[in-house]
Structure formats: structure tokens, C-alpha cells
């Protein structure tokens, strides 16, 4: 059994890697397996987690028992969950001709949720907290900063300021305003360069892990 499993894993690994050469039957086969199994996998997980774990157990909660298994009290059902299930069923109205438009209701609900929730979340975490975080003393607390730190502080404040100028939509980037916007895009480019350099490192380790599997665990060529 163990031999079969490691061969399957190796076969699929090579199939995906073969895509680097070109699209080929081996890749197509691996892709077909990947899509089929993973779609099934996620439905099963979602079904047991959400429909059973959240909905069914929520509406028909098991009795509360103590450690010895004696009955303590009935669970408290959460009937509000039925609203969720009804919205879910309405979603299926698309399958019926004529009443398909009803499925827009759950969609409208979801869109309303997403926009309402994110509006406030982003407002506090992205706007307020970041603005507050940028209010820093340039010379450090009690002149405590070194020259490098002072330069760093000025760059943080000035860079944030210039970056915001770049994103201005309703003003043409001309003159002093345009120059500041230019500095802004430079700062943003440094950010991108930094995250590029930073992520390249961890990307390599994944490939190394796969190679270790192929030549070590599978073929036993690595000591």
C-alpha cells in the first residue's frame, strides 16, 4: 500500500512539473485528477462543516451531558440559522425556469453583507490605524534617534504622504503636485521591490521540498 501511495504521489508530481516543458497528456491527466478530486473534496468538507456542523447541529442541538454522559439539559436551538438555509434554497431557484430571478435575493444579501462589513473593517484597520501609526516623532523620543533613524522617520512620513498624493484621482498630476506624485510612485516601487526580493526566498524552499520528495522519499537517491 505504501509503495502504491508513494508512486501515485510521484506520478502526479512529475505530471505537474511536465507542464514546464509544454502542455501534454501527462499534465492533462494530472490536471483532470486534481480538478475532479479537489472539487469533490471541498464539497464534502463544506458539507460536513457548514450544513451539518453549523446548520444541523445549530437547529437541532444535541442534549448537554456531563462527563459521565448523564442528561443535563436540552441544547438551545438557534432558529435564526433557518433564514440562512432559506436563502440557500432560494439560490437554487435558478434551476427552475420562470422563478430564477428569486436567486438574486440571496445574492443581494451577500453583496450587502460584504460591502457593509468591509466598509467598517477597512475603515478602522486600513485608514484609522495606519494614519495613527504614521504620527511619529521625527527625532525619536527625547532626541533618542540616530541620524539613520531620523532619515528613516522622515522617509516613512514623507513617503506615506507622497504615496497618497499619487493615488489622487481628481487632480491632474502637474507641477509640484505632479512631482510629489512622482516621488509617491517611487516609494511604492521600492515597496514592490522589497516584497519581490522578500518572497523569492520562500518560493525556492517549496521546490526544494518537492525535489527532496522525488529524489529522497521516492527514489532514495539522496542520502
Amino acid at each position, binding site marked *: 500500500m505504501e509503495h502504491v501511495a508513494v508512486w501515485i504521489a510521484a506520478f502526479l508530481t512529475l505530471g*505537474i512539473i511536465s*507542464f514546464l516543458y*509544454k*502542455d501534454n497528456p501527462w*499534465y*492533462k491527466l*494530472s*490536471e483532470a485528477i*486534481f*480538478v475532479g478530486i*479537489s*472539487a469533490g*473534496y*471541498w464539497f464534502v468538507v463544506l458539507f460536513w462543516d457548514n450544513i451539518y456542523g453549523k446548520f444541523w447541529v445549530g437547529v437541532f442541538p444535541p442534549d448537554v451531558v456531563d462527563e459521565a454522559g448523564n442528561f443535563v439539559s436540552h441544547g438551545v436551538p438557534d432558529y435564526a440559522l433557518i433564514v440562512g438555509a432559506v436563502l440557500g434554497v432560494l*439560490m437554487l431557484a*435558478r434551476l427552475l425556469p420562470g422563478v430564477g430571478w428569486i*436567486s*438574486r435575493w440571496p*445574492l443581494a444579501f*451577500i*453583496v450587502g*453583507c*460584504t*460591502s457593509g462589513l468591509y*466598509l*467598517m473593517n*477597512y*475603515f*478602522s*484597520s486600513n*485608514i*484609522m*490605524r495606519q*494614519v*495613527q501609526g*504614521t*504620527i*511619529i*516623532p*521625527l*527625532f525619536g523620543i527625547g*532626541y533618542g534617534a540616530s541620524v539613520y533613524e531620523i532619515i528613516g522617520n522622515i522617509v516613512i*512620513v514623507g513617503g506615506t*504622504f507622497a504615496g*497618497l*498624493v499619487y*493615488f*489622487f*484621482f*481628481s*487632480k*491632474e*498630476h502637474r507641477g509640484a503636485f505632479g512631482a510629489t506624485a512622482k516621488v509617491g510612485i517611487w516609494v511604492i516601487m521600492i*515597496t*514592490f*521591490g522589497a*516584497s*519581490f526580493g522578500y*518572497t523569492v526566498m520562500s*518560493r525556492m524552499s517549496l521546490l526544494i521540498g518537492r525535489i527532496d520528495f522525488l529524489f529522497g522519499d521516492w527514489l532514495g537517491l539522496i542520502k
Partner: protein
Amino acid sequence: MRLLIHTTLFLSVFIFIGSSRIFSVEPSPQVQADTLVNTADTVGVSVAPVTSLLVDDYKYDNGEQLNLSWVPSIDDQLIDGKVSVYRVYRITNDSTRELIAELPPGSNSFTDKNLNRHDTYRYIVAAVSASDDEVLSTTTEPVQPQREWINFRRGYLFLLALIIGGAVIYYIQSARRGKKLFVRKIAGLEAVDEAIGRATEMGRPILYIPGILDMDDVQTLAAITILGRVAHQIADYDTKIRMPVSRSLVMTAARETIKTAYQTAGRPDQYSDDMVSYVTDEQFGYVAAVDGIMVREKPATVFLLGAFFAESLILAETGNSIGAIQIAGTARPAQLPFFIAACDFTLIGEELFAASAYLSGEPKALGSLKGQDVGKAIAMIVILVGVIAVTIGNAWDVKFMNDVKDMLTTIFSTQ
């Protein structure tokens, strides 16, 4: 200039309201425990009990939390401390006491959560010595957690949201009344027209990838709103669109969107459900399938808009290898450099959310962009004023500057 005036106006109103502190709150009455100390038996190595145990309602919650505070035992010291742990006991509705928390030495407060506001609670805090001798404090008077209807702690958040949200709505309204608005060019969006035209000329499909997250992510929502505009042009040109998605809900929403676009363009018969297809929820399974579609169907134009993670570069490089024009955009800074490297045009962060308004060209949608700029102006002014205040206040200890800084940090603090 107008923008500056408006911003200053908004800002002054808000500082005025802010400084008058309309949301100041009466201090809540506290229930004080008997300050008489239980003189414990001094047998063995026991320790002095904690004193001044207070319970008060946790403010602005749904009646689910209580705050406890106390003065630590005098034997609880950093060096040679004799207290090994504090135990917090709770008595619910006169039942027996139960242990609810163990806290390390040095603790002097605790917040008890998940209470029921219909029950009453009493508390005891025990100081425990190294030899496990427990010395109890007095028991507090029974307290019920209170429910408050409005969270005044978030008053400034409300105010700020009102100002920035108000600015957006104000400009939408003024645009609706026919006021002309200037919006600068966004290169990535100027290219949309050309990219669709190219696909039409070449007779190849357009691939639209809305990211890998579900409709409960705001980037996906942005991708769907942009799809509405893009699909409209696609329908006009009568080009083919291909949209594999990784979430069922996104599939449903995308179908509605494209269908609408075809109907508005007057070609409802050209629309087919097959334009949008569900692949799999699995991140890399989806990527494998999209890569396959790219190399097999060779789309002339690829849109990568929405929430992308590690797959950003895999998709963008494969798209590049087939020679497609690629327009990408995401709000995840870590993935943007990869899009910039491998795509022809990239929408950076905020531009992704502004895109649908920009593409629509409708005055009211454009008005909202100007509203956003007010927010930016406020942020910039606050940063400038704040930094000057805190720098001067710190360096020369100017009281006024310190006050300004304190006010700004209070207003912008989030809880």
C-alpha cells in the same frame, strides 16, 4: 482649490465637534467589595490576600462582560515574591463558587467574558503561595452585567466614517446635479478598450479571472463590478468571453452580470451560461485548470482582477508565455510586484476599487472618486499636523502641541 476648501471645511467641523467632546460619558458607579481584609490563618507559608477587589460593568457591550480589578498581595513582589498564582472564583446566582481563571503573579485585573446579563455574579480572588496555600479575598457584592445600546467608545469612528462617507455621498449628489468632475487618466483602464478590440480582431477569446476568493471578499466584489463594465464592451464588440471561476457563488454572480451586459447591449441571444464555468474551490487545482485553458485556448486578452495569492505569478507568466495582453489588479501588496513584472498593465490597490466607476464614466460614480480624495486629503493633513505636533511636543515639551497630538491619537485610535 475647491477640493482644498471643502476638505478644510470638513476638517474644521470635525475638529470642532471632536474637541467639544460631545460624547463624554458619566463615570459608571462601581460596586466596591468590603475593604476589610480577611486576615487569613498564618499557618505555613501563606501570603497576604489581595485587597480592594472591585467589580464593575464592562462598558458598551451587550451585557456579557464584567471587569475585575484589585491591589495585588503585598507578598507579590518581583524579587522573592511569595505568590505563585492568583485564582479567580465566580459565584453565579448564589450557586457554589467555580474557578474561572488562573493568573500569573503581578496581575491586578481580569475581564470575565461570556456572561449572561440576567444572572448575578460575585467574585473572589485568591492569592496562592508556592506551597499551594490559598488565601481568599473578600467576596464582592452581587453584580449584573449591564447592556448598553450605543457604543460611545466608537464615537470618533462614527464621526470619521460620517465625514468621509458623507464626502463620497456629497460628491455623488453634486455630480448627479450635473457638476463637471475631473478624473485623471488611469493607464491600466485606458487600455481596456484596446485589449478588447485586439481580441476581436484576432478572433480569440478574452479570459477573465476574478481571483480565488468567494463573494464575501471585497476584492471579488470589485472584480464583479468591473466585469459589469467590461462585459458591456465585449457584448458590443461581439467578442467571446471565457470565465472559469473557483467559487460557485462567484459563478452565479458573474452569470447575472454578463447576462445583464448582453441584454443592455441588445444582444441577449448571444449570451450563454457556458461563458462562466465553475472549476474547483481548491486554490492550485483551479490554477492548474486555468493554466491549461490558457495554453489550449490561447486567449488574446487576460484580465486578472481580484484577490490573488501565490498563484499570481503562475497565472501571469503563463499568460505572458502565450502572448496575451494582460490587465491585472489586486489589493494585496505582496502580489503586486509579480503582476507588474509579468503583465502589461497593473491596477494598484485603490485603483482596483475605483476601476468600475472609472470605466462606467457615469458622473455619479465618478463623484464617488472625488469623495475618496477628500478622505485622502484628511489623512494627509492629519499626518502632517500630527507629526509636527508630536515632534515639537517631544523635543521642546510644548503643552499645546502635546495636546494636539493626544487629541489626534484619541480620535484615530481603534478599539
